[in-house]
């Protein structure tokens, strides 16, 4: 039978990446002077698993590299080597290196082993150097095994046990004997009394020997004590065996597991040299062969057939079990087992094919680990749904108006089942945010080192769950915000001391649920945003005019404007040409929002609000002519009927709505979306005021319809991206309705405006 091991590769890669993450997390927690052994154990286990899996699934280069890492960890774990700060750094770099190698292997690329080889040299230097006396003697052997990949196969294993047997006193040249029927094996086997308690039944070994050739067994019962002192669980017997066939390796393998717990001698008797040994003589032969202290015992041997032995043993074992069962008094209550089941979920990639070509070769389906409780609840829901469905089915078979109430009840039940089922399914995609948070300790560690700042990272609400897709997309904006807090927020230790603060700054990541949203906060206790400088900069950049009087909030908002960057020197840390405007845009693309609150001298708090899932949207259905569009409810500020007194006409055909103290431009959705409306007259339709990218706009539509949750479907899957439309959904009647991308529509408007301005010489 041959099994294609590549089918397990995906799972192996995933768990290895998880393992590397947990190694990284553990390493960041390690303090060389005072560490928890369990942390080292966790790191060791992860490395060990990666090594084991890599060897099994054919990634020898990974196994070899992990081996040196594991060796160092093992020494630290065993206390034979002390942990040093350099070790942590080295292992951290190895984790990075392994990640890259594994990524390459997953992408079916040739991994670059240069870094790995360099790191290996460093490991070898550590392992070779200053080895304390307690260090195992196998050190040099391990070092050499790195040159040639260790060939860990059955044969090496067999030879290892073979040498042990040789040490037992048998002639080593016996191993060269063949199975040619010119002789036979003579084996004396006396297992320790406890052999049965390790699950090693002599019967099994005899069975294996029988498979090698004709076996004759001769039980030695002289050690069996009086019945009164007999312990039924112990084995008192010994055997003299002759075996016609099998190689020394094969015979050794049979006894491999019991060699240390038994007296064993294995001797080849060459029949061409010696006269054939009869069974009568076997006892004395055994006496010679076995180096027993008391040689007289074997005299009382009697011949027992193998079947008899087997039967006797079985009886003894049964008896033992019986005794034990009676003794069993405590019935332990089983703890509830929470297992993890891996559910393969093909996560359709919604981003366009603008990704790296390299990436596209990797399988796009990823798996998601789901707690069994979630699966169970799902199964329960489906069960209920089936019951409701069959109830409705019966009702429909011979329906009359008398049963109307029951039908209504049934439909209400169905609605509830469906809603619960939907929630359960959504829960499957929910993962704790710790998956994202776990990246940041490393980031903060490296960055604070690079900037000579002392920073403590506090993580709160790590178990807050959110949709896997949202999670994947929120990582980068968060990295940027954390970099920003580190770079611009937290002061240098000197400045902090001068300001009467503790030397070490704190960045807190906090996540919690609020309504249908997840809120993520990035809080620092740094110097806070510099209002005056932001204002100054915004005036310089022409984002606001000098005369405008702005509230603090409005000034803070300016940092999210395109073309704004307060850093005097664009630093390597938070510069990178990406501004806060990009952060905000990325978050808005997830239908979320970001805002900042700051207190001078005390710090800043960035608050990100995101929907829990991208798959469902709370929508407002609007009608434009014959078509129905969906507006995200989250972006709607208010809806109103137009009073022409509220409309001002500015610059030709641009109408604005005066909404309290604001002027809101009006956008005719039918013009933007190129559909035939019912009304061209503003007074006859409705205005839906929406907000996106910090600007408000009034969308003119014919009618407001229902508000409902809609399941977002991709337009790109079979078609392409459509400007101003973020996706589609299927309405209750089966029709397709398009979901309006508010910021997309605004972009179109701005582009048109720009174009108009350029076309109009007066505007210039």
């Amino acid at each position: 039978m041959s099994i294609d091991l590549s089918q397990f590769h995906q799972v192996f890669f995933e768990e290895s990446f998880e393992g590397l993450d947990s190694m990284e997390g553990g390493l960041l927690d390690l303090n060389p002077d005072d560490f928890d052994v369990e942390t080292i154990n966790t790191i060791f286990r992860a490395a060990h698993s990666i090594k084991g899996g890599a060897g099994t699934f054919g990634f020898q280069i990974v196994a070899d590299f992990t081996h040196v890492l594991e060796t160092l960890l093992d020494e630290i774990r065993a206390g034979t080597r002390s942990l040093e700060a350099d070790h942590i750094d080295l292992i951290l770099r190895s984790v990075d290196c392994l990640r890259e190698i594994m990524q390459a292997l997953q992408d079916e690329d040739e991994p670059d082993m240069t870094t790995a080889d360099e790191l290996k040299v460093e490991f070898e230097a550590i392992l070779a150097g200053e080895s304390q006396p307690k260090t195992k003697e196998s050190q040099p052997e391990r070092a050499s095994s790195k040159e040639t990949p260790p060939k860990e196969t059955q044969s090496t294993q067999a030879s290892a046990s073979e040498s042990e047997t040789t040490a037992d006193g048998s002639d080593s040249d016996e191993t060269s004997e063949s199975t040619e029927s010119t002789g036979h094996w003579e084996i004396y086997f006396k297992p320790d009394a406890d052999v049965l308690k390790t699950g090693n039944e002599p019967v099994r070994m005899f069975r294996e020997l029988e498979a090698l050739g004709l076996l004759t067994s001769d039980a030695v019962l002289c050690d069996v004590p009086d019945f009164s002192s007999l312990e039924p669980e112990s084995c008192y017997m010994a055997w003299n065996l002759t075996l016609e066939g099998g190689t020394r390796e094969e015979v050794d393998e049979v006894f491999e597991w019991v060699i240390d717990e038994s007296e064993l001698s294995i001797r080849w008797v060459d029949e061409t040299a010696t006269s054939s040994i009869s069974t009568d003589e076997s006892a004395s032969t055994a006496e010679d062969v076995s180096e027993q202290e008391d040689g007289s015992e074997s005299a009382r041997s009697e011949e027992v057939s193998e079947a008899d032995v087997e039967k006797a043993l079985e009886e003894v074992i049964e008896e033992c079990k019986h005794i034990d069962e009676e003794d069993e008094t405590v019935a332990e209550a089983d703890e509830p087992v929470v297992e993890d089941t891996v559910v393969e979920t093909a996560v359709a990639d919604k981003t366009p094919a603008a990704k790296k070509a390299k990436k596209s070769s990797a399988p796009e389906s990823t798996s998601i680990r789901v707690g069994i409780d979630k699966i169970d609840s799902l199964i329960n829901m489906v069960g209920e749904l089936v019951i409701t469905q069959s109830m409705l089915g019966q009702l429909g078979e011979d329906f009359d108006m008398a049963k109307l109430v029951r039908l209504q009840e049934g439909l209400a039940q169905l609605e509830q089942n469906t809603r619960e089922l939907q929630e359960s399914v959504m829960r499957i995609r929910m993962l704790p945010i710790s998956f994202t948070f776990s990246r940041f300790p490393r980031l903060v560690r490296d960055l604070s080192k690079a900037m000579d700042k002392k920073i403590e990272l506090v993580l709160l609400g790590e178990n807050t769950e959110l949709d896997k897709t949202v999670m994947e997309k929120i990582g980068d904006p968060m990295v940027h915000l954390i970099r920003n807090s580190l770079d611009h927020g937290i002061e240098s230790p000197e400045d902090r001391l001068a300001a009467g603060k503790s030397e070490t700054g704190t960045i807190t990541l906090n996540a919690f649920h609020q309504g249908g949203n997840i809120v993520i906060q990035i809080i620092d206790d740094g110097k806070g945003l510099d209002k005056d400088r932001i204002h100054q900069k915004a005036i310089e950049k022409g984002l606001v005019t000098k005369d405008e009087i702005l509230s603090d909030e409005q000034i803070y908002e300016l940092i999210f404007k395109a073309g704004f960057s307060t850093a005097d020197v664009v630093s390597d840390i938070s510069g990178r040409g990406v501004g806060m405007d990009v952060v905000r845009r990325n978050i808005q693309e997830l239908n979320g929002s970001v805002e900042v609150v700051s207190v001078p001298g005390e710090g800043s708090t960035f608050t990100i609000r995101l929907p829990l899932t991208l798959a469902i949207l709370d929508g407002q259905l609007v009608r434009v002519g014959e078509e129905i569009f969906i507006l995200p409810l989250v972006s709607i500020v208010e809806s109103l009927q137009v009073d022409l007194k509220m409309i001002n006409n500015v610059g030709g055909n641009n109408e604005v709505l005066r909404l309290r103290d604001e002027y809101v431009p009006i956008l005719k959705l039918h013009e933007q979306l190129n559909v035939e409306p019912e009304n061209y007259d503003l007074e006859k339709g409705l205005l839906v005021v929406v907000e996106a990218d910090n600007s408000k706009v009034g969308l003119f539509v014919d009618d407001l319809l229902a508000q409902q949750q809609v399941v977002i479907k991709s337009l790109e899957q079979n078609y392409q991206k459509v400007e101003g439309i973020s996706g589609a959904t299927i309405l209750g009647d089966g029709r397709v309705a398009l979901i309006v991308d508010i910021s997309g529509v605004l972009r179109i408007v701005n582009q048109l405006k720009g174009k108009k301005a350029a076309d109009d010489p007066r505007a210039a």
Partner: protein
Amino acid sequence: MPKILAVDDSASMRQMVTFTLKGAGFDVSEAADGQQALNIAKQGGFDLVLSDVNMPVMDGIQLVRELRTLAEYKFTPILMLTTESASDKKIEGKQAGATGWIVKPFNPDQLLNTIKKVLG
């Protein structure tokens, strides 16, 4: 069909072992650590336990010790999945009452041969 309990904290190893053994007609249950394995084992009926050594919560050695205190598993074959480099673990495992070991890395055929031998 004989019932086997496969214990390993690595999902890929568990999958590989389960796939191999199920393919050969065995009835396989899985556990991701010693504690889980113990809970499942207590539900009874396993003819063989196959366990990794290094695992969180409860390691393989402790699992063997715990299993051997249960009447049902006093004599049940328990095989450790161990790496060549961890020869001290072999001895520790044996002392705890393990039947034998299978050395990692192993391929499905090696696994199956050993299991068939033990179960007869």
